[in-house]
């Protein structure tokens, strides 16, 4: 049986943002994507979360090419691993199991 890795709410959002951006998932694009999704976060907080996700073995990263617009600094790209997708599915399943009824999710319960 595979070990279940639990993820926090912000980690979940970061994983989803990486999946959404695909091959273009690096710090600045993730930062922007999260901002557009209504989640204001600092680059520092984003990187600490990304490094935690890497430590948990949920994402992998590699360095890209340096570019002039970044002052000659390279981009660090991220990709969600299979274990990351599993963690997302587990989190989603747990949330679904805990919801008492469909109405609650859409604001039907007072």
């Amino acid at each position, binding site marked *: 049986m595979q070990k279940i890795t639990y993820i926090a709410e912000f980690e979940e959002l970061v994983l989803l943002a990486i999946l959404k951006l695909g091959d273009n998932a*690096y710090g600045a694009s993730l930062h922007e994507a999260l901002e557009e999704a209504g989640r204001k976060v600092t*680059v520092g*907080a984003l990187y*600490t979360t990304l490094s935690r996700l890497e430590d948990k073995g949920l994402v992998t990263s590699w360095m890209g090419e*340096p570019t002039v617009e970044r*002052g*000659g*600094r390279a981009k660090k790209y991220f990709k969600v691993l299979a274990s990351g997708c599993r963690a997302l599915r587990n989190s989603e399943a747990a949330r679904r199991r805990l919801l008492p009824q469909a109405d609650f999710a859409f604001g039907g319960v007072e």
Partner: protein
Amino acid sequence: MKIKDDLEVLLKRDLDKFMSSSSNDCKQYTLFVDHDDEEKLKSIVHFAPSNVEKYAKLYGGDFERVVLRAEARELFLRKVGSGKYIVDSEFITQLEEAAGPVEEGQHSHAPQRSPSPPLNAEYILHLFLKADERDALIGDLLERYSGKCEHFGERRAKVWFYGEVLRSLWPLLKRLIARASGLIALGEWIRRHVS
């Protein structure tokens, strides 16, 4: 080779000064060199690809990043794997002489300007980051900064940059504390079990 003997001193501050002083009328040329294979010279701005081999021969392919600024007669090099910058003010002349005159049509690659955010903010951030994420994180900030500059102007972009750096410090500091606490706990465990 002369450049290797002469340039031993770490001059990161000079690079910072150089980055901050990049104004609109200063052209900056960046030459990226793959140190494993001189054939794989990556990205050339302004300088013709035909000249790259000459540059590569001059610095022996031992440097992974070279930043040239023609007007200021400055050259910045980063040694492979060292993360340190070294600077030479005269070597650019040698490079230009070796390269010869710029041929017509080579200017089609317009020189690009790198953004110049508040350097003291960048330096503060430097202190809290792991070596392997410094370039990436600061590069991301620079990229977002230049975007903000375009949309909201330099002043607001600088305010944003400062805010972003200051608010980034707490999560980075928390991570440092967590690591230090882990090490202290490990030391304590070893002390108890060894003594």
